[in-house]
């Protein structure tokens, strides 16, 4: 895959092969914390660290719904953009993203990375270790987290 800034308004992801296309398509699902208490707790942490019961309850009632909607909206932008993953004559795919969508992409990639790390209970050591593709599914998820991080880093540079 090649990533480049086309112009002021557009970033291009080009020559996307099937593996990378699959990783991109997995972003919305990976960002969903459903079924994992650890992932939900990470996306919606306690504002007082559990010290004030009433404040925590109020937060869950009044703040969390807004956060959930905010997160859904960001992932929704990514989902819509991914529908435009266009096949090319080479069999590879291209994706052109409006720069104004990059904040949503940065958020969704971050959310996916956090959910994956929490869901699979990766240790700090595992996350910081050099990437190895040995070890099956767990290694693949770690690769996914790192790949999303690289993409996030590129997008961050575009919005600075």
């Amino acid at each position, binding site marked *: 895959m090649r990533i480049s800034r086309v112009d002021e308004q557009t970033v291009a992801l080009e020559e996307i092969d099937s593996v990378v296309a699959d990783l991109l398509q997995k972003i919305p699902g990976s960002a969903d914390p459903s079924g994992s208490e650890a992932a939900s707790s990470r996306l919606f942490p306690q*504002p007082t660290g559990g010290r004030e019961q009433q404040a925590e309850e109020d937060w869950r009632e009044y703040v969390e719904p*807004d956060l959930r909607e905010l997160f859904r909206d960001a992932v929704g932008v990514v989902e819509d953009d991914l529908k435009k993953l266009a096949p090319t004559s080479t069999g590879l795919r291209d994706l052109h993203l409006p720069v104004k969508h990059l904040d949503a992409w940065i958020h969704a990639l971050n959310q996916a990375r956090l959910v994956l790390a929490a869901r699979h209970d990766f240790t700090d050591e595992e996350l910081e270790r050099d990437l190895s593709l040995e070890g099956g599914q767990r290694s693949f998820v770690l690769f996914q987290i790192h790949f999303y991080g690289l993409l996030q880093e590129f997008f961050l540079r575009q919005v600075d």
Partner: protein
Amino acid sequence: MPQLPTIENEPTTEDAIDVPWNVVVHNDPVNLMSYVTRIFQKVFGFTKQKADVHMMEVHKQGRSIVWTGARERAEAYVQQLHGHLLLATLEKSV
């Protein structure tokens, strides 16, 4: 789409010393350092240099107090930081 709370006419730490609450950001091995710096700039209006100092404090010491002042405003900042997926809490500064 819900908006994160906008914080206007930010009082300085000194203005709010009679109701001191700290906004604390905690380390997280997943969030990118460059991302954390950017969010500090965005939420608190920090210079890049100041945002980097707090980001490094979070990274090396596990936490950084990024703002101190009235509780209501501290809660609004924590909400903004949670909106950007940072681990943040508020706590009494004394």
